[in-house]
């Protein structure tokens, strides 16, 4: 008896096919695991379930009934609650107020706090959450807040509860409390969709599971029996890599970038690595593994707490972006919109923002020189824009990325180029153009550091890959010894074997 059913759901975004005819169903009173790599389509499916996005085609059925969710409100009314990674609680209000927000017991507009606290206290007790309803949310641990968020779902009589990577910021003890709560909800007959790529959680919790890959349903398992960790991993990654990468061997020279024991606020464990002239060094890891944090430290975007960064053997004296640029170390940031482009300024100005200091005597601009530079890069990098005067916000993601690349290539002597998620949100055609640019820069002797969450991409273009896990560099692989299984295994945070996990669940 299927209670929640996805029927042939497809969804496209401009330039990407996010989901293709995904269909599976989940029984009443069961926990269903939804797995897949970053970008496999899990989030899109959850967004459609929560009414936050509409499917292009296909249906969601609850209890056999076709649902039409025009908004998250509609989904909520139909009994679907999604617990997102980012929590939606008001920190300065009490637990009880958060749980009853918008539905306070009140008389003549005056909140009856006694009734509120008593009511919420009873509910929390009944679902086994040991938190004072009077406590302010801001003093709770992240785990407790996660629990309150789940409690919110329970209190609204949800029939379907989807949890999107709920343990990503929880300690193992906190996770265990959450798991017990999920077990209770299952016993009450709810449908629980549990999104995670932590395999032992999936084995600990789930009764059945589905694997998404490239927006398609790669596997569906009605039962977890006889399933192994290895099999799930290969289902998550098992694709043929078409050669859109065009990797070719090139000579590798001496060390250009040397990072020695670098640590910072978001990267407590010191990290060290090197990149050589002509080398493309890949950084792989799951979201939150600390790759971007490390690159921001190397570039001086965030303050260093320890360690040194040297370019061509010369240590940067005081790491900040200006010093890094002057030493020939540049970064194309992960979040193009927030950290890369200057909105409201032209393509030309976005290219010239840094390199103009070389040809602006006494701070006076040389507009003709800037125009020439812009036109040259628009041509060589194939930046598609009506003119160099176009506001950069009107360009597509791929072309914005090329403008950022042009910004650095117009610097006279770049030695190390760090690109963080260079092709995120970029269509396939522009992707391979960007790879080509990276190859030709490496051939000219630059050291290139590429950060990516896309396993095929990093395997396709890197000469050497460092894998980060839980904010430290965990493993190193050198071409041709790349394997998807090995890389993913090194990146996954939980090292428990499936056998152990199964025993844990049985006990």
């Amino acid at each position, binding site marked *: 008896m299927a209670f929640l059913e996805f029927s042939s759901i497809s969804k496209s975004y401009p330039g990407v096919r996010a989901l293709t005819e995904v269909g599976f169903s989940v029984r009443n009173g069961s926990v269903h695991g939804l797995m897949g790599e970053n970008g496999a389509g899990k989030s899109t499916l959850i967004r459609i379930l929560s009414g936050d996005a509409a499917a292009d085609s296909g249906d969601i059925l609850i209890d056999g009934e076709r649902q039409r969710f025009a908004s998250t409100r509609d989904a909520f009314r139909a009994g679907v609650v999604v617990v997102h990674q980012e929590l939606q609680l008001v920190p300065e209000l009490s637990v009880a107020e958060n749980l009853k927000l918008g539905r306070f017991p009140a008389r003549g507009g005056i909140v009856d706090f006694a009734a509120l606290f008593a009511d919420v206290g009873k509910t929390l007790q009944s679902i086994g959450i040991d938190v004072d309803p009077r406590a302010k949310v801001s003093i709770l641990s992240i785990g407790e807040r996660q629990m309150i968020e789940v409690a919110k779902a329970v209190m609204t009589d949800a029939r379907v509860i989807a949890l999107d990577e709920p343990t990503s910021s929880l300690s193992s003890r906190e996770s265990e409390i959450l798991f017990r709560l999920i077990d209770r909800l299952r016993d009450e007959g709810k449908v629980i969709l549990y999104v995670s790529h932590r395999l032992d959680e999936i084995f600990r919790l789930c009764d059945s599971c589905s694997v998404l890959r490239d927006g398609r349903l790669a596997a569906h398992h009605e039962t977890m029996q006889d399933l192994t960790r290895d099999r799930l991993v290969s289902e998550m990654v098992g694709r043929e890599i078409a050669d859109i990468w065009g990797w070719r061997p090139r000579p590798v020279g001496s060390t250009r970038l040397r990072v020695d024991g670098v640590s910072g606020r978001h990267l407590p464990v010191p990290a060290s690595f090197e990149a050589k002239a002509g080398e493309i060094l890949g950084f792989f890891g799951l979201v939150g593994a600390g790759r971007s944090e490390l690159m921001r430290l190397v570039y001086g975007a965030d303050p260093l707490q320890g360690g040194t960064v040297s370019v061509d053997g010369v240590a940067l004296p005081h790491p900040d972006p200006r010093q890094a640029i002057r030493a020939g170390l540049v970064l194309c940031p992960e979040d193009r919109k927030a950290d890369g482009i*200057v909105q409201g300024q032209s393509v030309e100005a976005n290219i010239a923002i840094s390199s103009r200091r070389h040809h602006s005597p006494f701070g006076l601009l040389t507009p003709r020189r800037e125009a020439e530079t812009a036109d040259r890069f628009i041509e060589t990098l194939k930046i598609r824009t009506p003119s160099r005067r176009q506001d950069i916000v009107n360009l597509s993601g791929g072309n914005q990325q090329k403008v950022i690349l042009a910004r650095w290539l117009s610097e006279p002597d770049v030695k190390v180029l760090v690109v963080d998620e260079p092709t995120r949100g970029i269509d396939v055609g522009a992707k391979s153009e960007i790879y080509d640019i990276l190859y030709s820069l490496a051939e000219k002797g630059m050291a290139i550091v590429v950060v990516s969450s896309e396993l095929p991409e990093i395997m396709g273009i890197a000469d050497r890959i460092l894998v980060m896990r839980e904010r430290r560099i965990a493993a190193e692989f050198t071409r041709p010894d790349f394997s998807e299984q090995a890389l993913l295994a090194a990146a996954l945070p939980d090292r428990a074997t499936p056998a152990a996990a199964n025993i844990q669940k049985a006990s």
Partner: protein
Amino acid sequence: MTLTLKRVLLGEQGLLILFILAFAVVAGTVPNFLTERNILGLLQSVVTIGIVACTMMFCLASRDFDLSVGSIVAFTGMVAVMVSNGTGSIPLGLLAALAAGSVVGLVNGVIIAKLHINALITTLATMQIVRGLALIASDGRAVGINDSGFYSLSLSRFLGVPTPVWVMGVLFVIFAFILNRTVFGRNTLAIGGNPEASRLAGVDVDWGRIWIFAAQGLVCAIAGILLAARITSGQPNAATGLELSVISACVLGGVSLVGGRASMSGVIVGVLILGIAENVMNLLNIQAFYQYVVRGLILLLAVLLDNLRSRALGRR
């Protein structure tokens, strides 16, 4: 038809066209408006606002805010008068005023950029501190100018045009040049457009902001000196509410309050619109109380226009 009208009004030159239309209507209907005497008087009356608007434009363009300008104008005027009275040297008095203004601006900038205190709060505080200093220094009274040479700063003319108007014109040219043709000007717009991206692109965001505030202080001192010369004394209560008029003029001139967009020609038009509105109301003998209402309405209309234009440009 309506579409093209909309495009004209919301386009780059929309404000200028509105201004020319309004000017033509006023010139044709208000008696005594289009006389040399009245136009020079009008320009004379916007000198303080016009001068301070030059740097306020930079401040707003970089997403900052400066409420302390009125106080700095009063304080530096006071310093100029007191120092030149005390030393008997006008140049010394002027230098002291310029230095005092720059120091206040620099302090604003360092607190805002280096200590990361909100610009609104910081300048709200310095606005009161500096006004207080002006009152303390003068014991709350106006201080008359001893040396009549000081007046000539305001009374003298060159080619028939009063010196202060020339000063304002020269500053317009200088700051238009800085905004459009220097790295500093472009960096100012970049900081306003996206401060974090600018920092990561190697722009020295902190010092850019500090220099803008320092320049603001210096320019306020120039305005303060000219104002003191015109009213023949240092007045501790001079230029109250100036900050709001100046910000109004900038916003009227299309400077975006969320940063990243500014033009000198727009600001000049904004300043003139405020000046003309006041001038016309004076000529028509409208009671001063109504003038506040009209100024407020003009500001609201300007913000509305800015909002429509931003939406037409498709951002924010």
